């Protein structure tokens, strides 16, 4: 099975691990992520204003490329997923944006939101299945207590993203279970880490990250996993906690037995 793959800017720079472990894991799980050719940065945040077109076009280009190839479009970074999927929803349902974006793009055939956008976690859950993932585990993470941190971008607005239950998500917990570890369920796993605010207001982000980390610690999480480079940065940098926060793909690669290989080849 081949998917179109949209890595996004951070996965080429500060979050190379998120990308490398995912690719290696995909190979083990029997699917391939074919990087689309001329991708550009998604912009990090979805432009909420209904009257903005230009900032949505990079997503449309990526979406259209996947459409031309007849593939589903996979992302790893929460922000890319959020932005690309919401733009896709606009292209499906918002007449004005669809019209203006297509007028600007001048594609051979107008793009009408045909592409299906999937997060890597959705591929694991809905295309591969956690039972299959479990079968491929060679180093089960038995005995480890791991918390998932979802943040905002994967879950909200659920009406459009439809990723998981926005108030009580389960996909990463099920992944943790499939890898042989014990998921730690704590209430702030869907609360914001502060996001881009940490550029100008570290204090605010720090408060939020502490709430998350303290809560996870109180439920005895030894480690947190996340899909978002910004969350990973904020939780690691801005919270006073020793609990490590790593990408979910690293955990996956570890359990599938390909982590060392990636580490040996990678230059992180």
């Amino acid at each position: 099975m081949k998917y179109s793959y949209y890595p996004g800017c951070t996965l080429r720079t500060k979050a190379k691990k998120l990308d490398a472990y995912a690719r290696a894991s995909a190979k083990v799980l029997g699917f391939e992520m074919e990087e689309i050719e001329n991708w550009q940065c998604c912009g990090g945040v979805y432009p909420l204003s209904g009257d903005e077109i230009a900032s949505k076009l990079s997503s449309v280009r990526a979406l259209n490329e996947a459409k031309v190839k007849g593939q589903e479009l996979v992302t790893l970074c929460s922000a890319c997923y959020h932005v690309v999927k919401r733009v896709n929803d606009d292209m499906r349902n918002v007449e004005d944006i669809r019209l203006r974006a297509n007028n600007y793009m001048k594609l051979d055939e107008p793009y009408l939101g045909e592409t299906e956008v999937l997060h890597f976690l959705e591929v694991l859950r809905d295309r591969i299945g956690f039972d299959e993932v479990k079968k491929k585990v060679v180093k089960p993470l038995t005995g480890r207590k791991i918390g998932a941190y979802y943040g905002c971008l994967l879950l909200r607005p659920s009406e459009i993203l439809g990723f998981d239950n926005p108030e009580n998500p389960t996909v990463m917990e099920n992944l943790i279970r499939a890898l042989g570890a014990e998921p730690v369920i704590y209430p702030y796993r869907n609360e914001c880490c502060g996001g881009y605010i940490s550029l100008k207001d570290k204090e605010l982000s720090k408060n939020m990250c502490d709430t998350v980390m303290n809560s996870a610690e109180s439920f005895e999480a030894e480690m947190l996993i996340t899909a978002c480079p910004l969350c990973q940065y904020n939780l690691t940098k801005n919270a006073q906690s020793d609990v490590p926060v790593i990408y979910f793909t690293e955990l996956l690669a570890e359990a599938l037995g390909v982590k060392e290989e990636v580490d040996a080849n990678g230059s992180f």
Partner: protein
Amino acid sequence: MHGIGVFVCHCGSNIAATVDVKKVVEMAKLEPGVVHAEDYQYMCSEAGQEKIAQAIKEKNLSGIVVCSCSPRMHEATFRKCAEKAGLNPYMVEIANLREQCSWIHKDIEEGTEKAVILTRAAIAKVNLNTSLEAGESGVIKRALVIGGGIAGIQTALDIADAGYEVDIVEKTPSIGGKMAQLDKTFPTLDCSACILTPKMVDAAAHEKINLYTYSEVEKVSGFVGDFTVEIRKKARYVNMDKCTGCGVCMEKCPSKKAKSEFNSGLSNRPAIYTPFAQAIPNVPVIDPTQCIKLKTGKCGVCEKFCQAGAIDYKQKDEVITQKYGAIVVATGFEVIKLDNYDEYAYSQSKDVITSLELERIMNAAGPTKGHLERLSDGKPPKNIVFIQCVGSRCAENKGKSYCSKICCMYTAKHAMLIRDKYPDVNVTVFYIDVRTPGKNFDEFYRRAVEEYGVNYVKGQVGKVAPQADGSLLVHGVDLIDGKQLKISADMVVLAAAIEPNPTVRNIATMLTASIDTNNFLTEAHPKLRPVESPTAGVFLSGVCQGPKDIPETVSQAGAAAIKVVGLLAKDKLMTNPCTAKADELLCNGCSACANVCPYGAISYEDKLINDHGIRKTHRVAVVNSALCQGCGACTVACPSGVMDLQGFSNRQIIAEVDAICR
């Protein structure tokens, strides 16, 4: 001799403000056949009706058009008025100038223009009206009440006391409904069971009332005065005649893992059970999904211990057919599912409960024997937070659009009872508005605040976060103080919205009773006919019509009963004369009409027909006017166009079309 009279009503200023009534009168006078036209302030008033009667007599009118409000409002009034003046009541047509014109158009020129056209159409139609005679049909002196909660019980008691037979069909094993689950009732705090159980006993003992518990309505046919209903009596596996209600079977049953419906799933019950100790009838049922004997063939403990020999594993469902003159829907409500409100952690913590679950916890017969304790660890809570409007008053995609009406009051009741019995427990109520219309209701709520020290906070809760130590951190806002609050609670109670019992959809379809987008049954008129369905012979009692508390339900139940009694007291009902009729001369007996008739009202006879002197016998369609309900399906199906509907004939409707398009 043709002579049409036109009567234009001002309806005070309701019509006259946006329709130039004088102009309508002038224009009407120009229409063919019109010999009289006038306007008046209120045509439906006695003076207005007198004007109509006088004109009919003086000008010897053959038909009248009243330009007024909707025919659904006053058609009957004006028909009666015409009849009194000696005109056939079916020679009356209404032009709906209020609902369809003056109320929706703001421009007087535009409104008047439309009013003239609507009047013109009505005149064109009435020119072709023919005198019709209403037939008669009998009334079966028996009523059916669907639902055995307080609404159904009260309706049945009131009908039975008036001397008519009533059957109650209740789908659960006992009558009593939601009220049986409640601990205390507002605003008097008397015990729910103490006031309900005597009524249940009365209903069971009443010689005119017959209970079909553990039964469901399966099929309904017929019409007002003469409904035929099939009722499925589900197999109880217990012989009702033999069972003494000793309860030994329930004690001995080895399968005890089913969730008790009565205790809102907070405790377990055996496979053979009565829902609660005061159940009526006090005869258990065997839940076939739980019974080991019925599932595997091995067990039979209850049979062994039953001294009365009442257990019958071979019992089958039984379908009985019964005839009724009137049907009352009293299907009540359920609490909504809370899947979409996971921010309140209902699915994540045992200590986040609904108000109905709290009722069971506070009830002496409940899962905790009436002790207020946390379901997670049995510890007494010290801080309780109530959250109002969970799923009520929402945008369409977020929940129920309506106010559930009862939550403000029952929350005040719960808060008060807790503070009364456990003065050291802190109670906080997050509210958006406190709605307490009702006698002694606001006073009741004020007592909760002023005498019992319940902390009411204006604002909502955004999240309930279950903590590692088992407490619940409630993230709320106090809009008055302008503060975000984080309250550590050990119990959170959600005032979840109520919705009509899901079975009501199916029942409404069987009864052809209309239902709104929230699955509440529609009343015939929201103000003037609140307990009647638009479908004749079907009446509404309790929450199936809209959210209401116990006193309101009981009053509505009584009102529905008196409407039923009023119907059953009649010996004959006038039937709708607007029925289908075939032109025997042209009918060729092809059966197309009978195939589409939902009532089986069309049959075929070989008739001797005199066609311009040529006598011959041929097969023609004959409509049984007692069965025909006048839908008109057959008129369109007829390939030769000989089937017509009286009162809505092809010529009449075409005349209306022509008048509108002219």
